[in-house]
C-alpha cells in the first residue's frame, strides 16, 4: 500500500469539517475528527512488526519531478515511533477536546481544521526522507501552531503568543532550510538516507560546519531550547488540548526528531556533540530553575517542558559519543541513545496527562493561578491521582516510568566524564553536575505543581467557579495516560524492544545492524551505584528545598525583567518595527514632490547607466536634415514661450505661453511634413487652452492670486539632469538604428495591402487598429472620470471616514 498518501488523510478530512460543523451541529464535531487519528494509529501500529526486526518501508509519490522533489515516506523505527505518538496522543487529545471545548460557544470548525492540518504536517515531518518536503511540513507545523495559539484571537495575549512563536520558529525554519540546501550541495542529494551514507566524506567539506549550525538553529527554535525557548511559555495561551498536543507531546519534539534523524550525518563532529549536549543540558537546568518562578499552572508545565526537552536533547548529543567509541557494548555510552528515546516516550505520556489535568483545573475552577488554588484533593480525587502519577514520574520517583529513564539519563551523563575526545576529559565533569542540579529543581517543581494545587487549604472564595470533579469524558484521556505511566514502569523492556531499540538503531546506524544488537536491559534495581546515590541525593535535597519553598521562592521576583530574554525579544520586535517605520518615514514624506524627485532621479540613473554600460551613446553628424530659417524662428518662439512659463508669476501668462508652445510644436509638424499631426495639434491645443481658461474662469480666486515661485536648486538639478538625459537619448537614437525600420514596409504596402493613400491614417486605423481602439478607450475612461468628478459629490463626512 502506498502509505505516503496517509500523511494527507487528516488534511483531506479537514475539508469536510466545516460542512459537518454546519450541518450536523448537534453532534460535537470532535467525534468525527476522532476517527482520523484512531484509524491512522491502528494502521501504523500494524507496521510495528517490520520495524521491530529492524526493517523499513518506503513509499514514494513524485511531486515536482523536474526539480527532483518528491514525497518520500520512509518508515523505520524512529519515524514509526513518532508517528505512533502523533496519532496516539492525537486521538486522546481529540477525545479530551470534545469535552473541553463547548460545541455551541466555540468555533470548532476552525479548531479542528487547524488541528488536522497540524497532524498532516507532523506526520510529514517524521516520515519525509526528502529534505525539501521535510522543510515544507516543518513550516506547516509553525503555521498551524500559529493558528492554534491564536485560536482565541480576540485575546491580546493569544495574538502576541501566536506571533512570537511564529517569528521564532519560522526564523529557525529558514535557517534550517539554509542548512538543508548546504547539505544537498555537499551530498548532491536531498535524501536523508543517502546523506547518511555519504556522511564520512562530507565531514571535511567547508560547508559542513555551517550546515550543522544552521540545522541546529532550526531544531533548537522548534524544540524551545535556550535561548529560543521564550516562545513556548507564551504559546500556553492556546486551548489546553493544543498545549498538550503541540507544545508538549509532538511539535516541540520535531526538533528532537530532526537532531535524532541527522545524528548519523553530524555525529562525527565534536561541535555537534558539544552544541547538542551542552545547549540541551543547560536548557534542562534553566527551564527547571525558572519553572518555580511561575504562578500559572500551564506556565509551570511550559517551563518543565522546556527543561525536559533539554534533557532529551542532551541525551541525543551524548549519543553522538557512540560514534567515536569502539566497543560500545562494554561501556556505558550506549545508554544515551536508548535513554533519549525512552525518556521521549515517558515525557509524552506523563506531560500529556499533566497538561490535561491543568486544563481540567482551569475548566472546573475557572483559574490556573496556583496562588488561588489549593486543597482540591478531596474535591477532585481522580484528577489529583492522575496529577500525582504524572508529576512523580516527571520527578523521577519509582514506580513510574520516569524513574527508569531518569536513572539512565544520569548514567549517560556520568559516562561523558569518561569520554576523552573534544576536551571532554576536562569539562565532562560539568555534565553530571548540571544534570543533577536540574534534576533537583525538576523534583521541586513537580511537587510544587501537585501539592500547591491539590494539597493545602482550599480557598473557595478566590475561585471564579466552585470546584468539582471533571466529567468522566474529560478524564478518560488523562487516566489512560496515567495508567500507561505505571505500565511502562513494569514492562520497560517490552517497550524497549518494540519501540525504543528500533528507533535507537536509526539514530546510531553506525553501531547497530539490527535492533536486537542494542544491548540495553532496563531494570528498576541495578545495585548501589553512583546513579542511585545521585537519585537519593535528588530526593533528599529536593524534598528539603520543597519544604522550605515558601521562604526562598520570592527571591525569583528579584530577577530584573529588563534583562530577561523576553525583554530582549520585545525590544528586538519593537526596534525592528519602529526602525522599519522610521526608515519608511524617512523617504515617505507625503510630499508628491519628493516622490517625483525619486522617480526622475531613477530615470536619469537608469537611462544614463544603460547608455554608458551598453556604450550606446553616439552622434552621427551625417544624414542630418538641413537647418532652415523658419525652423529657427519657430524654435526661438518655442524656447521663448517655455522660458516665459518658467519665470512667469501670473498663471494666466503661463497658460497662454503653454498655448504658444503647443502652436510652435504644431508649426514644427507642418515644417517636418506631418500635416495630420499639425491639424490635430492645432485643434487639441485650442481646446486645451480653452479648458485651462475655463477652469480659471470658474475659480477666480486662483487666477488672481499670485504666488512667489522661489528658485529651488535641488529641483533645478534634477530637471537639468532629465533634460540632458533626454537630449543624449534623442541624439543616440537618431544616430543609430539597431534594425531597419518597419516604416519601409508600411510605405511599400500601404496601397496594395490596405488600399489607402494616407500612410499615417492607414497605420492608425488598419495596421495598428487595436492601438487606436485602446486610445479611444483611454479617452472614454478619462471622460467618465471627468464626469464622475463633476457630477459625483461625496458628502464631506463620508470622505473623512474612508481612511479609517
Amino acid at each position, binding site marked *: 500500500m502506498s502509505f505516503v498518501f496517509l500523511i494527507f488523510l487528516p488534511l483531506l478530512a479537514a475539508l469536510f469539517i466545516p460542512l459537518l460543523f454546519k450541518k450536523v451541529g448537534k453532534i460535537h464535531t470532535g467525534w468525527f475528527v476522532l476517527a482520523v487519528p484512531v484509524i491512522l494509529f491502528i494502521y501504523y501500529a500494524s507496521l510495528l512488526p517490520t520495524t521491530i526486526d529492524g526493517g523499513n518501508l518506503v513509499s514514494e509519490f513524485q511531486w515536482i519531478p523536474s526539480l527532483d522533489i518528491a514525497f518520500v515516506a520512509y518508515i523505520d523505527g524512529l519515524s514509526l515511533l513518532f508517528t505512533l505518538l502523533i496519532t496516539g496522543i492525537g486521538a486522546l487529545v481529540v477525545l479530551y477536546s470534545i469535552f473541553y471545548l463547548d460545541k455551541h460557544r466555540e468555533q470548532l470548525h476552525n479548531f479542528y481544521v487547524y488541528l488536522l492540518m497540524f497532524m498532516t504536517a507532523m506526520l510529514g515531518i517524521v516520515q519525509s526522507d526528502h529534505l525539501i518536503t521535510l522543510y515544507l511540513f516543518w513550516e506547516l507545523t509553525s503555521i498551524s501552531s500559529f493558528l492554534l495559539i491564536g485560536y482565541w484571537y480576540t485575546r491580546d495575549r493569544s495574538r502576541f503568543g501566536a506571533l512570537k512563536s511564529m517569528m521564532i520558529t519560522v526564523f529557525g525554519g529558514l535557517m534550517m532550510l539554509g542548512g538543508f540546501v548546504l547539505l544537498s550541495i555537499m551530498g548532491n542529494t536531498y535524501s536523508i538516507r543517502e546523506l547518511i551514507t555519504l556522511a564520512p566524506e562530507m565531514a571535511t567539506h567547508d560547508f559542513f560546519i555551517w550546515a550543522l549550525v544552521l540545522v541546529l538553529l532550526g531544531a533548537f527554535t522548534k524544540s524551545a531550547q535556550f535561548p529560543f525557548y521564550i516562545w513556548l511559555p507564551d504559546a500556553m495561551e492556546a486551548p489546553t488540548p493544543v498545549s498538550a498536543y503541540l507544545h508538549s507531546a509532538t511539535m516541540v519534539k520535531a526538533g528532537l526528531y530532526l537532531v535524532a534523524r541527522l545524528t548519523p550525518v553530524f555525529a562525527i563532529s565534536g561541535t555537534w556533540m558539544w552544541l547538542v549536549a551542552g545547549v540541551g543540558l543547560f536548557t534542562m537546568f534553566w527551564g527547571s530553575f525558572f519553572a518555580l518562578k511561575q504562578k500559572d499552572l500551564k506556565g509551570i508545565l511550559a517551563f518543565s517542558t522546556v527543561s525536559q526537552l533539554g534533557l532529551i536533547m542532551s541525551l541525543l548529543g551524548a549519543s553522538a559519543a557512540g560514534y567515536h567509541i569502539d566497543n560500545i557494548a562494554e561501556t556505558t555510552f550506549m545508554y544515551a541513545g536508548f535513554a533519549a528515546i525512552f525518556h521521549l516516550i515517558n515525557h509524552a505520556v506523563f506531560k500529556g496527562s499533566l497538561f490535561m489535568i491543568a486544563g481540567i483545573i482551569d475548566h472546573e475552577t475557572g483559574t490556573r493561578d496556583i496562588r488561588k488554588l489549593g486543597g482540591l484533593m478531596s474535591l477532585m480525587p481522580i484528577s489529583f491521582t492522575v496529577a500525582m502519577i504524572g508529576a512523580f514520574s516527571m520527578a523521577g520517583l519509582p514506580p513510574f516510568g520516569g524513574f527508569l529513564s531518569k536513572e539512565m539519563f544520569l548514567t549517560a551523563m556520568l559516562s561523558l566524564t569518561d569520554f576523552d575526545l573534544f576536551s571532554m576529559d576536562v569539562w565532562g565533569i560539568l555534565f553530571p553536575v548540571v544534570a543533577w542540579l536540574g534534576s533537583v529543581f525538576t523534583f521541586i517543581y513537580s511537587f510544587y505543581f501537585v501539592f500547591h494545587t491539590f494539597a493545602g487549604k482550599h480557598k473557595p472564595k478566590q475561585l471564579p467557579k466552585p470546584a468539582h470533579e471533571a466529567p468522566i469524558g474529560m478524564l478518560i484521556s488523562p487516566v489512560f495516560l496515567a495508567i500507561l505511566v505505571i505500565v511502562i514502569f513494569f514492562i520497560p523492556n517490552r517497550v524497549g524492544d518494540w519501540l525504543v531499540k528500533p528507533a535507537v538503531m536509526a539514530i546510531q546506524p553506525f553501531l547497530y545492524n539490527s535492533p536486537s544488537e542494542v544491548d540495553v536491559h532496563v531494570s528498576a534495581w541495578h545495585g548501589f551505584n553512583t546513579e542511585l546515590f545521585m537519585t537519593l541525593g535528588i530526593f533528599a535535597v529536593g524534598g528539603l528545598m520543597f519544604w522550605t519553598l515558601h521562604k526562598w521562592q520570592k527571591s525569583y521576583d528579584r530577577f530584573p525583567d529588563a534583562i530577561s530574554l523576553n525583554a530582549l525579544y520585545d525590544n528586538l520586535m519593537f526596534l525592528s518595527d519602529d526602525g522599519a517605520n522610521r526608515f519608511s518615514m524617512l523617504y515617505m514624506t507625503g510630499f508628491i514632490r519628493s516622490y517625483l524627485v525619486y522617480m526622475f532621479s531613477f530615470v536619469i540613473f537608469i537611462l544614463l547607466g544603460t547608455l554608458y554600460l551598453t556604450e550606446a551613446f553616439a552622434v552621427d553628424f551625417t544624414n542630418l536634415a538641413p537647418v532652415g530659417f523658419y525652423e529657427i524662428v519657430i524654435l526661438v518662439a518655442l524656447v521663448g514661450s517655455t522660458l516665459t*512659463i518658467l519665470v512667469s508669476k501670473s498663471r494666466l501668462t503661463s497658460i497662454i505661453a503653454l498655448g504658444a508652445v503647443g502652436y510652435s510644436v504644431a508649426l*514644427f509638424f507642418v515644417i517636418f511634413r506631418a500635416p495630420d499631426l499639425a491639424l*490635430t495639434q492645432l485643434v487639441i491645443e485650442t481646446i486645451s487652452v480653452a479648458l485651462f481658461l475655463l477652469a480659471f474662469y470658474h475659480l477666480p480666486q486662483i487666477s488672481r492670486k499670485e504666488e512667489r515661485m522661489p528658485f529651488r536648486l535641488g529641483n533645478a538639478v534634477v*530637471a537639468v539632469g532629465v533634460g540632458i538625459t533626454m537630449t543624449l537619448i534623442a541624439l543616440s537614437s537618431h544616430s543609430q538604428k539597431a534594425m531597419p525600420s518597419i516604416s519601409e514596409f508600411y510605405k511599400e504596402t500601404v496601397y496594395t495591402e490596405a488600399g489607402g493613400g494616407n500612410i*499615417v491614417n492607414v497605420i492608425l486605423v488598419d495596421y495598428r487598429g487595436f492601438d487606436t481602439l485602446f486610445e479611444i478607450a483611454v479617452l472614454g475612461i478619462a471622460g467618465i472620470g*471627468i464626469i464622475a468628478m463633476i457630477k459625483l459629490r461625496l458628502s464631506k463626512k463620508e470622505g473623512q471616514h474612508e481612511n479609517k
Partner: protein
Amino acid sequence: MEIIMSVAIGFLFMAAVYLMLSKSLIRIIIGTGLLSHGAHLLLLTMGGLGGNSPPVVADGVSISDYADPLPQALILTAIVISFAVTSFFLVLAYRSYQELGTDNMDLLRGTEDHE
C-alpha cells in the same frame, strides 16, 4: 537640424520636470503638458526629420521621399492621449480646489494619522 532639435527637446523636458516639481498644482499640470510636447518632438526626431513630401501616396513621388510615417502615427495617438490626461488633471485640480480650498501640494499631503 536633428542636433538642434535634440537640445530643444532636452530643454522642454527640463522645463517640464522643473514645473512638475513645484508645489502649485496648476504648474504641475502645465509641466505635464510641456512633457508631452517634448515627448512628441522626441518621437519625431528619433525617426529622422528628413523626407521631402508628406507620407501621403502621390504620383511621381518615390518611396524614399516620404517622411517617416511611423513616428507620426505614434504621435497622433500620443497627442490624443495627452489631451485626455491633461483635461482629466484639470478637472481634478478644479475639484480638489473646490473641496479643499488650496492648490498648494505641500498642504495636500496626508496627515500623520492617515497611515
